[in-house]
């Protein structure tokens, strides 16, 4: 049996920063390896910031919920929000990783970072909520 925990994240950037601490405590308490913690912190920063910046009224819908599940081989985080339907995986254009410094566009790297740092990312829309599930092997 794995370890499970559920957290609420309200809709401000300060709440996202506070959740980074909460997440780190959960992980260090359960001996999750450092590189896995860091990769998740980056991915969660991207995903939660996107919901807060672009989601429609996720806070009015009871905030954002993050469900963590740690099993012997992997850590999973499911991010659930009641904003408008948004699949970050299919919405992002491919990033420009090759242009010279002066031509390189600012931004557009968030989704690419998340999908590369994680082993599995899946999106589902169900009962009026977005469910984004991130997994990484330990």
């Amino acid at each position: 049996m794995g370890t499970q925990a559920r957290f609420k994240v309200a809709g401000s950037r300060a709440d996202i920063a506070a959740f980074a601490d909460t997440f780190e405590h959960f992980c260090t308490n359960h001996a999750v390896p450092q590189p896995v913690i860091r990769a998740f912190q980056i991915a969660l920063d991207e995903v939660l910031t996107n919901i807060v910046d672009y989601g429609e009224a996720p806070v009015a819908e009871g905030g954002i919920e993050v469900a963590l599940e740690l099993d012997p081989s992997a850590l999973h985080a499911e991010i659930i929000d009641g904003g408008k339907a948004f699949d970050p995986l299919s919405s992002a254009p491919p990033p420009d990783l090759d242009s010279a410094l002066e031509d390189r566009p600012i931004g557009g790297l968030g989704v690419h970072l998340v999908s590369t740092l994680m082993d599995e990312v899946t999106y589902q829309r169900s009962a009026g909520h977005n469910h984004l599930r991130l997994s990484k092997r330990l």
Partner: protein
Amino acid sequence: MLEVNESREGEVVVVNLAGRLDTSTATDFDFAMEPHADKPARILLDLSGIQYVSSAGLRVFLMLAKKLQKAQGKLVLCGLNPTVREVFDIAGFSKILQIEPDRSAGLQRLA
């Protein structure tokens, strides 16, 4: 949280960063670098105290590098931990930014 400490080594401005570079701290970093960005400054960013960098942090590195290039300044980064290095590689930044393993190699590159 993010700590920014600035010092000088001859002509080089050395900026030590410690903590996290994410959505909540990227603007602090941007603000701290602003006085140098439009000058032909030589800047060494020592990231050895940085735990991780998210895309909000990457955005500030890229804007700073672009501005310094335009102003004929020079930017070198050093002290990236394996996670930060991986993020720079994934983002394709390792090809456009000058990265050295440590502070003395960074200072040499700027000499």
